[in-house]
């Protein structure tokens, strides 16, 4: 049985979430690629450049999410560290240390700092699972995920203002 390799690639991409392929391989139809130079991440393509934020205008419930506020605060803390040049696009960003991200998140939150770090670690893993961050737990680094490449540039203004206001990560070993 022969299956069109493009169809097969598309099916694989849908099952795997946000897979990455080498730059040399073609992007299957129905996907947009977010490339960082060596690899291409396959992302869903929406008609007419709409994003899922459009669901809100139609009063349709978006994808349900446990503790969306916490997840987004962790995402903001991660972007504060991996997106240092705010005038550029957030993707592909830079590698940042996970401990820095956790410190920024602790600065954002209230209460027990250890507990906040543990919550944030869990959220970092969940965000990495859904392609919002690329987390390398062995190296202890994190960088923006390919999904942030789908953000339209004109919607980024408030986010840039917010990230400018966020405190910088405090480093003990900083010069």
């Amino acid at each position, binding site marked *: 049985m022969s299956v069109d390799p493009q169809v097969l690639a598309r099916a694989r991409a849908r*099952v795997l979430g946000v897979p990455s392929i080498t730059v040399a391989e073609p992007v299957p139809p129905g996907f947009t690629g977010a490339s960082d130079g060596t690899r291409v991440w396959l992302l869903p393509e929406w008609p007419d450049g709409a994003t899922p934020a459009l669901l809100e205008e139609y009063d349709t419930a978006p994808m349900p999410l446990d503790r969306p506020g916490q997840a987004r605060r962790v995402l903001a803390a991660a972007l504060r560290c991996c997106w240092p040049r705010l005038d550029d696009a957030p993707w592909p960003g830079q590698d940042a240390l996970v401990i820095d991200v956790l410190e920024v998140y602790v600065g954002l939150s209230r209460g027990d700092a250890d507990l906040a770090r543990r919550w944030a670690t869990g959220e970092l893993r969940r965000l990495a699972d859904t392609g919002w961050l690329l987390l390398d737990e062995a190296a202890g680094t994190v960088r923006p995920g390919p999904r942030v490449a789908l953000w339209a540039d004109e919607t980024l203004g*408030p986010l840039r203002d917010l990230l400018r206001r966020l405190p910088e990560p405090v480093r003990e070993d900083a010069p």
Partner: protein
Amino acid sequence: MSPTSDDAFAARDDAPSLDDVLEGEAVLGVYRQMFAALARDSGAVVDDPELVDVAETLLAAFADAGEEGLSREQMRYVCRRYPAEVFDNRLRVLKGLGAVREVFPKPNQLRYRASFTSVVGLMFVRRMMLDGGQSEMHRLLALEQLNVADPRMTPAQARDGADGLARAFRLWSVELLTLTNGTIEELREQAPKLWGTEEILQRAERLHGAILRRWPQLDRTCTDLRAAIYAYGDASRRAAARLSDSAGTTRNLTLLPPETWRTFARTATREELAAVLDGFVFDAPAPWHEPSAVVAAVEDGPRATPPRPAPPRPSVPDPGLSGDTGSDATAVERLRTVAEQVLRGRDRVAVQDVLDQDWVTARRLLADLSSVHLHPELPYRLAWGDGMAARPDGSPTWVSSGVFERTGR
């Protein structure tokens, strides 16, 4: 409700006549047709719900076919979704029980027709499957109420109806009592049987009152019925009380206790565990975080310090701090340079010698020298003497005698 009871009635007479046998055979025929759809073979009930679907498909096709009936090939075509052996088996059983029979009772008959009784029986069975016995009880009570109001009703029929209802209520309360004394899991599973009991009780009591008003001579039967109704009410109340005791604070009776979940997770086979996820789609869309949502989440989040408004930003790019901080050291250095230029290595110099330039430059120098004199850190001084020299041609036009000198420090 079983055919054997009719046989027993027939056997009570010492010499059963041919008429009795015929009558019993007719009753048996109705029973057989009613439950033909459920029969696996002529002696047992189906063990696969799909077999009932075959029967239903067939009966629906017969209804569409009209008086012509269907040939065997047409029946096979209607049931083409099912395997051939299943279809053959069903057809044989349905024929054997009289649900499907030849249009004319002749050998080698090719066309068949279906029995009306079987369809009604199947409808009844489907309804029982959908609603369970309780709603059938509601229907029976309503029907009986109509019957009692019917002027053609005889006391004997009313007594039979009341006896049947009393028997049903007694069996029901026995079942509830067994449940109440059994395990709580089983009780929870059967909990829907307990819902709406109040309504059934009221309806039954109304029926009981109607029978008693119309036929006072049936008081004995009515007493039985009344006792059965009350027994049922007590049993259902006790079962409900046990159920609500075990449920604790939650009123959601469909929630399983944690122990049941844990036991299932430990004892289930791999297939059973996988079946739990049967209805899930695994390429579900990922959550979407809009930038504005991220901003809103951070701004609504709990924070240690009270929120501060963002400082106003200039419209032009900010070049940062300028190098001129206005610190004192720079000014002191400049003044020291000025003083050394004036002294040129000497210890003292007359002021009028220094001011021999044009007035614009000279007054600036004089101001600097005054600053040097007044600065507490610098070791210079400006000393003015008495007298004044007028120089109409010079510039400045008058000077007073004074010296600028190095103090010893």
